[in-house]
């Protein structure tokens, strides 16, 4: 809150200056006015708004703490490792199911090709069953489209993580330097049969049967 007394003093000083003859206002008069304004401003800041300042400082600390906590979660790792891996796995699912479906359909067509070589009743059964196989194979198109939607969602998440990394700036580097060692230690002490399993590998990364045979046979 402003002090009314200061306001009155300032108003009086300004009035005095206005009443003086033009050209007779001295530097002392101006410095008095400026001093009054500065005094009023100082009192303004030091007084009632102190609590607001405290709250702002508290809020700033809270934001800093939150930033540190988010940085400790290592969003850079999510972007560099987890998201690309998830997208690659999904792409692989689409490619493998498409390949398998094409082979199923080619084989079904081959079966349908011999329908004429069997008796009518058997031909009918083969035809019906083949049609059902064809219809069922449409799952590949639908699952493919669904997976593509998930990949798009992952890309969107990646963009958001990018923004987060940018907002956190140097904060992440602190944890980047500190955490790899901790993670490595954990890996060494926690090796289990289960932790060694990684499931199917991405094509290109996986070892071929030939390579495995070479390894086994020396």
């Amino acid at each position: 809150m402003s002090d009314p007394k200061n306001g009155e003093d300032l108003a009086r000083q300004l009035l005095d200056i206005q009443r003086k003859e033009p050209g007779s206002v001295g530097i002392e008069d101006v410095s008095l006015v400026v001093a009054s304004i500065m005094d009023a401003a100082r009192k303004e800041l030091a007084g009632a708004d102190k609590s607001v300042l405290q709250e702002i400082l508290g809020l700033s600390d809270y934001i800093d703490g939150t930033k540190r906590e988010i940085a400790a979660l290592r969003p850079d790792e999510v972007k560099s490792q987890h998201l690309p891996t998830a997208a690659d796995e999904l792409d692989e699912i689409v490619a493998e199911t498409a390949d398998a479906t094409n082979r199923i359909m080619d084989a079904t067509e081959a079966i349908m090709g011999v329908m004429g070589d069997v008796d009518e009743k058997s031909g009918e059964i083969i035809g019906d069953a083949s049609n059902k196989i064809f219809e069922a194979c449409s799952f590949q198109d639908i699952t493919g489209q669904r997976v593509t939607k998930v990949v798009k969602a992952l890309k969107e998440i990646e963009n958001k993580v990018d923004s987060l990394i940018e907002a956190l700036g140097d904060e992440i580097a602190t944890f980047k330097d500190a955490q790899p060692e901790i993670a490595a230690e954990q890996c060494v002490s926690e090796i289990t049969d289960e932790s060694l399993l990684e499931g199917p590998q991405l094509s290109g990364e996986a070892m071929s049967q030939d390579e495995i045979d070479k390894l086994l046979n020396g």
Partner: protein
Amino acid sequence: MRCLVVDDSKVIRMIARNMLQELGFDIVEAENGQEALAVCKQSFPEAILLDWNMPVMDGIEFLRALRALPGGDAPKVVFCTTENDLNNIRTALEAGANEYIMKPFDNEIMQAKLSQVGLL
């Protein structure tokens, strides 16, 4: 009768071809709207089974281009898609689709829809 099957999925084209051939149609295939438009510019098929989501040119863009061609209102167009939102269906009908089949589809629904547009 000739039916143009437009879908970027080889699997769906094979399924549709198999079903439609049994119903007596001669089949022409296209992988996207642009290819389909080229086929139509040569000669219009009686029926078009059309997917929505395709690369290069999608189904709705193709349909609008088809209907804008002289004589392009002749083919019966049956949309065959996973897009089941009411707005999508409305958009497709406004663009000139005659029928709408949801994927996955079977022989029964295919026959029913083709009958409804007078192709069977």
